[in-house]
């Protein structure tokens, strides 16, 4: 089982590297968005209610990371849908391997890519003058929560791909990614959000993930936001992986 999962994960990573058009947006767009947000709204840190931060870049880094991880989920879904369209998925199903390995293989790959995303954005932030106040421990907390969240978003993408069976429909969830992101506190303090984002963000698990990613960057590691963020990320990962397994079963029944 482990060998099969690792083999499928390796294959998924190689596939992603062969199609840079699906990996590039995970870095390019969050980076550009980060640059525009920081450059355009740098003065907002002086607003009443804004938490104490060294600079707006430090605050925005977690938002960019969350956005990148969400796009990673879309990318995972598209890759999975392309395998279904191309017939590889059917050949995989016909082979004598545990079915659950099909789901887990791609999620392991997504987790590894998420780790690279986290390290990349932290390095980018440090290069442009941000500081991880939580130090090495803070960086590790960000890495763990980022990987778990990345796997969760990947599982959501995979579930949609297994249901939709074509890449263009999965691609169509992109606006939904924007909606979920804007309806959270990923980019701005919850206290300063306007309606309806202020209300929705309280119930949006992404807010807790983003705040947990941000906390070790702008302050020393605190237990409460880290646990809340990890719980939200793990909840998303477990629920979405379960849904992915159910979607796989449904797809096998249809085949």
């Amino acid at each position, binding site marked *: 089982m482990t060998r099969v999962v690792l083999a499928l994960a390796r294959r998924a990573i190689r596939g992603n590297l062969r199609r840079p058009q699906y990996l590039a947006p995970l870095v390019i767009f969050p980076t550009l968005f980060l640059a525009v947000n920081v450059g355009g*709204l740098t003065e*907002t840190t002086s607003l009443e209610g804004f938490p104490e931060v060294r600079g707006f870049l430090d605050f925005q880094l977690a938002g960019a990371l969350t956005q990148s991880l969400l796009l990673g989920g879309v990318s995972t879904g598209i890759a999975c849908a392309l395998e279904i369209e191309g017939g590889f998925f059917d050949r995989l199903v016909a082979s004598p391997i545990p079915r659950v390995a099909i789901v887990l293989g791609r999620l392991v790959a997504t987790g590894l890519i998420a780790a690279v995303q986290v390290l990349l954005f932290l390095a980018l932030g440090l290069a442009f003058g941000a500081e991880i106040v939580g130090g090495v421990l803070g960086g590790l907390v960000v890495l763990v929560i980022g990987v778990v969240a990345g796997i969760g978003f990947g599982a959501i993408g995979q579930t949609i791909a297994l249901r939709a069976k074509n890449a263009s429909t999965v691609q169509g969830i992109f606006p939904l990614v924007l909606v979920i992101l804007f309806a959270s506190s990923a980019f701005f303090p919850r206290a300063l*959000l*306007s309606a309806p984002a202020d209300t929705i963000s309280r119930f949006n698990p992404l807010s807790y993930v983003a705040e947990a990613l941000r906390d070790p960057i702008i302050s020393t590691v605190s237990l409460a936001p880290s646990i809340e963020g990890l719980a939200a990320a793990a909840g998303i990962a477990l629920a979405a992986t379960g849904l992915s397994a159910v979607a796989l079963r449904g797809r096998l029944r249809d085949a």
Partner: protein
Amino acid sequence: MTRPALRRAGVSRQLAVVGALVRRALNELSRVPGAAIPGVIAPTIFVIGLASVFGQADRLAGFGTVDFQTFIVPVGFLQAAGFTGAATGVNLARDIERGWFDRLLLCPAPRLTVLAGVVASASLRCLLPVGFLFVVAMAIGVRFPGVDGLLVALVLTMGLAAAIACFAVTVALRLRTQQAAPLMQSGSFVGVLFTPAYAPKELLAGWLETIATVNPVTPVLAGVRQGFVGDVTWGETWPGLLALTGLIGVFGALAVRGLHRYSS
């Protein structure tokens, strides 16, 4: 047939080719809705999202009496132009990959007409996301820019869609693969957002203020924004038109050169 009559017949045939290419591009909405619809609603989601998240930024001195929601709607217009222009390049790359574009070049139509059809489709298609955004913006209480302000905004937005389409077409003809999509999209992203998109110029960070000052999309944005935040004046309109003329001239020339290189 007299020479003017022949010329008129030639022009009408070329317009027919342009029209056919525009119709084909518009058909994409029904042919590949999963890929096309996000481009229609994304600018609206972007504007509403940004207004909800960064809305309190208008408390900063520098915004004056303009609320952030109204300030950001024109950016949505230009984003619609950006998305549509980039999508035109991606669609062309797909046509090249599938061999359809090579078949198109075999038809007895001048290369420039084919290019005009592709670019005109971008200008017209951007009206869909812009129209959707405008209706939603009015519904949530954004200030009506006036008929003149709206017309100026539409002309400038369509012009920018054409300019970005020329850029994306150049990239598509050069790289001939859909894998170049991020390059086309990020080009339009940088053009539109590295301007006083989120805040007046005096509130931008120094580096962004410098880029915004030299970015030719900045006067286009000012032209689109003027009706939403105040009165429409010729002084705010002509720099945008001039910048667009330059952008279309440069990227159009590059696209024509790319097409000739591709054909040969």
